[in-house]
């Protein structure tokens, strides 16, 4: 029976791509897998797992893209995964084969990593990429000589052209991999007695794996306490000095590589003025470099806020009419209401951010792929140091202007723990796109529509909010710098690759996959919260609800349309007041009084605890804006007219509006961000600290602003 069920021609295997940063690994991965790739998460560590199927000639081949690294000894979160996958410690990702990508113009450093993989004993092949660049630099590699020296299949290519890619595909489908001989003799590094004991105890295949285990035993989650103790005991018994052995390994490796390369590389002197050097004179200039960077930032800003408004309005309108259509088409009832008022707007609330996020990631991908991003790190590192940040904090912080979620995820490639935590903790203070709709409404209420010289006052105020976010980031970073203790030394070692023209296809794939990650990560939470909020806002204690509704005088049977409309509005408003969420709003009113807020704003604060942009829709519901199509009043005008029943003063006066603006600037009102911080820091400690400090900061600042202005 089983013969029929399993066709013999199908074979399933996985190939891991490994290589230094900037060797075109991602380009090759994108070409091999296209849009079929999936970005997931490695269990235990927090690194995006990029995996994609390649289906050719009845073979199911799974390609795993590993983060770029210089050696199998990890320095960052990203690189730990390389070590774990290659050592077979990651249950879900045990590659059958390794495809090592080497930059042909940087053979020595590339082979350093390759030779380590060889020593681990995995079947592998080597792709010498960037043939074109090497050629321009007068470097030629005798592939056959190199093959003879290493005993591993090697192809030369330029992954940017399709012909080369065919070669890589053939190599993978024909399984042209070979299990190499060890490159170094581990006996030179590790006493044989020690490696034998460890290999036997843990069932390892070769001495280099034993060396790896000794190196990483402390941080390996799969090892039990007694196993760690066993290793430690054996290390002590053998009187083995790991640090010395590692330095020795590195030296021996380079010497051996140099001996190999002497035979395999031909150098011709070419004296060409390289474009990269010319561009660096501008981009790294002490003044000009910063001017260019600022210009690029402004362009990104412009794009995020101006260009994306068209698709965003479109999505907004689409979901509004979808809601309306649902109400009209489906039979009236609770389910229809849930769909029309909870789920549809919930999905819309997630999708509306896609244009901004996709655009931002498009720009970041262009900056990254072109090689410019590492120049930004170079320029900004010194300026960020006094604040306890790092040049590499720039990408997370810039990303956070669109959304803190991808920003926090981008902090992974900061090697230093303290710098990374600080970056994660302050990233949500950057003004994200979810704050924008809140700012727009509140600024319209608080700031007059006037010009000072050529500047529109409201626009200046909006810009001021972004600056406020940046100032808060820097100040809070200083606090974390003073509080956090770290034994690790912060360091920056950064390769600045050649400038290259980014490929449109790569940029598009990045935009797509990052946007999908956002929708999956943030989307679920926002959607769930919208549904919960809808329930809480629609229901209340029944007796209380009924009494409140009965208290409103129904219009006479012959009343005009206007009277019925007004009655309906009052009903929905009183229902909200007596719903669970309305009760909660009243409950917190005493606490928010000093900030100048009433219970209705309290309700908005509670609902926007999950996601700040909910503020606008809650306020709209509370003041029953939009329930009447013919009602010409916009949300802003409606709020402007709202007066306090007791004092007769405007609710949204200047002091309250500014107080609210400041509150929204600092408060941690985003469940998705907390969820991501939890995931990235592997625990509840940091998300909790973040929520508490941001809430306190928001409360105190809003209080100060209100007291000052009123």
């Amino acid at each position, binding site marked *: 029976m089983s013969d029929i069920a399993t066709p013999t021609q199908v074979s399933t295997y996985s190939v891991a791509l490994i290589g230094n940063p900037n060797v075109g690994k991602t380009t090759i991965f994108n070409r091999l897998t296209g849009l079929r790739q999936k970005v997931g998460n490695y269990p235990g560590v927090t690194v995006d797992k990029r995996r994609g199927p390649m289906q050719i000639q009845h073979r199911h081949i799974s390609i795993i893209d590993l983060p770029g690294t*210089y*050696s199998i*000894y990890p*320095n960052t979160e990203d690189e730990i995964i390389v070590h774990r996958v290659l050592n077979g410690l990651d249950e879900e990702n045990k590659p059958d084969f390794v495809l090592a990508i080497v930059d042909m*113009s*940087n053979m*020595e*450093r590339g082979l*350093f990593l390759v030779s380590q993989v060889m020593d681990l004993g995995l079947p592998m092949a080597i792709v010498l990429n960037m043939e074109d660049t090497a050629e321009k*630099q007068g*470097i030629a590699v005798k592939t056959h000589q190199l093959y003879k020296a290493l005993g591993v299949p090697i192809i030369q290519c330029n992954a940017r052209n399709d012909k080369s890619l065919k070669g890589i595909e053939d190599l993978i489908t024909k399984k042209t991999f070979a299990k190499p001989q060890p490159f170094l003799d581990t006996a030179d590094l590790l006493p044989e007695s020690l490696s034998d004991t460890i290999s036997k105890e843990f069932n390892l295949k070769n001495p280099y794996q034993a060396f790896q285990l000794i190196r990483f035993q402390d941080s390996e989650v799969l090892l039990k306490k007694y196993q760690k103790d066993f290793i430690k005991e054996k290390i002590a018994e053998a009187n083995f000095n790991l*640090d010395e052995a*590692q*330095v020795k390994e*590195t*030296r021996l490796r*380079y010497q051996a590589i140099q001996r190999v390369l002497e035979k395999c590389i031909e150098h011709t002197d070419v004296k060409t003025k390289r474009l*990269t*050097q010319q561009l*660096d004179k501008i981009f*790294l200039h*002490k003044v000009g470099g910063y001017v260019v960077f600022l210009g690029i930032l402004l362009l990104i800003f412009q794009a995020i806020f101006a260009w994306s408004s068209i698709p965003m309005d479109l999505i907004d309108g689409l979901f509004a009419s979808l809601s309306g259509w649902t109400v009209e088409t489906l039979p009236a009832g609770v389910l229809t209401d849930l769909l029309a008022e909870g789920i549809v707007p919930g999905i819309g609330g997630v999708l509306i951010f896609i244009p901004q996020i996709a655009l931002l990631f498009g720009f970041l991908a262009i900056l990254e792929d072109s090689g410019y991003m*590492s120049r930004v*790190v*170079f*320029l900004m*590192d*010194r*300026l960020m140091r006094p604040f306890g940040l790092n*040049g590499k904090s720039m990408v997370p912080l810039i990303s956070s202007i669109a959304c803190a979620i991808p920003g926090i995820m981008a902090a992974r490639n900061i090697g230093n723990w303290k710098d990374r935590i600080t970056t994660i903790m302050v990233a949500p203070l950057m003004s994200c796109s979810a704050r924008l709709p809140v700012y727009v409404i509140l600024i319209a209420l608080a700031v007059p529509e006037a010009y000072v010289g050529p500047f529109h006052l409201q626009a200046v105020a909006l810009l001021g909010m972004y600056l406020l976010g940046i100032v808060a980031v820097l100040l809070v970073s200083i606090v974390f710098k003073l509080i956090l203790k770290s034994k690790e*030394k912060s*360091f*920056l*070692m*950064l*390769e*600045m*690759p050649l400038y290259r023209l980014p490929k449109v296809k790569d940029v598009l794939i990045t935009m797509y996959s990052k946007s999908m990650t956002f929708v999956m990560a943030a989307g679920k939470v926002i959607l769930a919260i919208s549904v919960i909020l809808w329930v809480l806002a629609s229901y209340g204690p029944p007796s209380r609800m009924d009494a409140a509704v009965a208290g409103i005088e129904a219009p006479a049977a012959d009343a005009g349309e206007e009277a019925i409309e007004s009655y309906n509005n009052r009903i929905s408003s009183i229902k909200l007041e007596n719903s669970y969420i309305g009760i909660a709003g009243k409950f917190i009113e005493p606490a928010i009084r000093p900030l100048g807020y009433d219970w209705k704003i309290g309700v908005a604060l509670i609902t926007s605890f999950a996601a700040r942009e909910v503020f606008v829709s809650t306020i709209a519901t509370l003041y029953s804006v939009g329930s009447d199509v013919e009602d010409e009043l916009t949300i802003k005008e409606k709020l402007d007219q709202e007066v306090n029943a007791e004092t007769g003063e405007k609710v949204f006066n200047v002091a309250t509006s500014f107080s609210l603006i400041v509150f929204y600037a600092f408060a941690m009102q985003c469940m998705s961000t907390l969820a991501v911080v939890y995931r990235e820091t592997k625990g509840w400690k940091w998300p909790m600290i973040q929520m508490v400090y941001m809430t306190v900061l928001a409360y105190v600042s809003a209080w100060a602003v209100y007291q000052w202005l009123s």
Partner: protein
Amino acid sequence: MTADQITRGAYALIEDLVPSELTLHLMEMGFMPGKRIAFLHQAPLQGPIAFKLENSVIALRQSEARLIQVQLDS
């Protein structure tokens, strides 16, 4: 002298690395004794220094460059 003291545009040979926790990392990046490096750019306020090493450009902080002992080379 150490690598941070090379004048802009000048070349030097790496003699040795001052032992530190970064030694291994510097070696992995290719800063090995005997290699020739050039001082290309430095960011303002004693910021990171971009060195040319073989065919690549690598930026190090000034404190890291101090760990590399060099001798000027023409």
